């Protein structure tokens, strides 16, 4: 149904205008914020197009769940909302798809999507499925003119530390936090990412001047490299492995009884095993940190393309790094997102069924 999705999308402005005019005519007293109505309508329209394109229901489930927050519907008078959305779907079927036989599948799918929207607006998502991670969007550039309250970041870090579980309570990793004022360090990290890009592309440039020239030649003054979020971020978090040297009382009791902990290994395969655990737990920590940041309107992004060997971080500015960096995360107020330039329908994640295998179905 990709063709039909593109066809509907090409009539976007006509459809939205028709719906807005219908609403003004039939419900003139509903609102004086038509700009907000139009914005929300466009979100739902986009979800329809995306789900028809991918023959799924993911986008409409997601967008309709946003009508609810913490088990409470966010609009009181929802019948008008439903009438407006019903009009939009009917208009698409009648005016764009024109009830043609070739478009029968698309028409049926669109009706199904509307049913999901209606059901969710009226009754809410079946489970408490709200998470602030819904707000996540990969950041291309942060707004350096905006301030981020340091207390919010500290609180989010504390929340992540407190609520992230750890195998045998070791937490075999460290989080090094670079502050907004450390502009020079952020720039150094940015150029390390850029250096890594040149290496991956088979044109390894190592000196700063060479990298600045590469940046200018490759991206010019208007475009920004993927890693510009690192340079413009308010905060940068560098995650490294951590070897425990001070076990807690329970850990010590078990060590005395013959238990072996890889999180305390200083070298060898056991240290590698601990690194494997660190990767998983860093993922958990950063997800919890992300959730807390997004709840406060702070955007985050992850960076996994950087020199992973500590020997490439030899500048005195990075003397705090005693192990290889495993993940870089940025936080701040975004000004430009990846999704602004790469639409979801072109760049979807693999379908749910390709990732999650319900073994008891077989």
């Amino acid at each position, binding site marked *: 149904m990709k063709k039909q999705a593109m066809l509907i999308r090409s009539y976007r402005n006509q459809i939205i205008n028709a719906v807005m005019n219908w609403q003004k005519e039939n419900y003139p007293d509903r609102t004086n914020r038509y700009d907000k109505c139009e914005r929300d309508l466009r979100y739902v329209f986009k979800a329809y197009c995306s789900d028809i394109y991918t023959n799924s229901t993911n986008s409409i489930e997601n967008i309709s769940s946003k009508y609810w927050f913490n088990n409470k519907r966010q609009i009181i008078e929802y019948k008008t909302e439903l009438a407006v959305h019903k009009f939009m779907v009917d208009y698409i079927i009648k005016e764009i798809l024109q009830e043609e036989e070739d478009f029968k599948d698309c028409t049926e799918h669109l009706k199904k999507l509307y049913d999901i929207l209606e059901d969710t607006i009226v009754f809410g998502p079946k489970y408490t499925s709200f*998470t602030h991670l819904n707000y996540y969007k990969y950041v291309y550039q942060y707004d350096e003119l905006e301030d981020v309250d340091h207390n919010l970041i500290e609180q989010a870090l*504390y929340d992540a530390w407190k609520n992230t579980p750890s195998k045998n309570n070791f937490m075999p990793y460290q989080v090094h936090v670079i502050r907004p004022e450390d502009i020079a360090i952020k720039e150094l990290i940015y150029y390390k990412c850029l250096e890594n890009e040149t290496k991956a592309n088979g044109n390894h440039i190592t000196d700063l001047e060479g990298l600045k020239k590469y940046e200018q030649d490759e991206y010019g003054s208007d475009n920004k490299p993927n890693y510009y979020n690192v340079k413009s971020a308010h905060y940068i978090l560098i995650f490294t492995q951590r070897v425990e040297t001070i076990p807690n009382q329970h850990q010590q009791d078990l060590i005395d009884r013959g238990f072996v902990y890889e999180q305390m290994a200083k070298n060898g395969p056991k240290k590698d095993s601990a690194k494997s655990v660190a990767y998983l737990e860093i993922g958990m920590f950063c997800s919890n940190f992300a959730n807390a940041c997004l709840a406060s309107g702070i955007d985050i992004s992850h960076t996994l393309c950087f020199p992973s060997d500590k020997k490439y971080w030899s500048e005195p500015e990075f003397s705090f790094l005693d192990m290889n960096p495993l993940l870089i995360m940025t936080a701040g107020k975004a000004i430009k997102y990846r999704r602004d330039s790469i639409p979801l329908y072109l760049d979807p994640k693999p379908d749910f069924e390709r990732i999650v*295998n319900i073994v008891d179905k077989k």
Partner: protein
Amino acid sequence: MIDLDTSLEKYKYVREYEEDLSISPQDFQQLLFKAWQVTPSKNNFMPYNVHVIGPDKQHLKDLVYKKCVGNEGTVDSVSDVEKLRYSKVKPRYWNIVSSDYVLLFTLRIETEPSEFQQDAIRRGITFEAMDQKNTTAAAHNAKIEIGMFSSALSSLCLKNNLDISHILCFPTNLERWNEEEFSFIERQVLMIMTVGKGKHYRRDIIPLDKDQKPNFDRIVKMV
């Protein structure tokens, strides 16, 4: 004031789950779907699979349990772990046997890139998430992203009064998962997670004052 989502505060490591089914497979699938939906992924590859062993597959859970106990013996060089360590108390990993759902996270190498990824490949960009031979880098990314997925799922489960626990002591190599029952596993196992309604918790027998995590300042360093 920061708006903190506190559902994760309910987390406690489960030693044993209640026997009654806590959530139907259809409903649990909705939570899995949400976790899939909100978990970000490098270049949108999602280099992992989540194999969900449901309530009616007890024999599979028993097999997973045996692998974990066997692995403990190998790691600690103890010949009969069950007899030596668990003759009087229920073994660690009993959460696997008693859980409603066991999730096996495995590495996944992409073979069907999206249109956007294909465009990038045509422009000469290589993706470790598609490298069939050297899977080390993909596995590193997969572990971080599995951590994110499981954290999102944990939050959803705890919000809906379900308990969860993670297991990281098990044989990772594919050769150790060669039984017919595990034919769905194509690449190395990276993490195990269990879900259900907790009956006994680790904290019931190991008090917090003896088993604290490292202090905040030892983990988070303000540079």
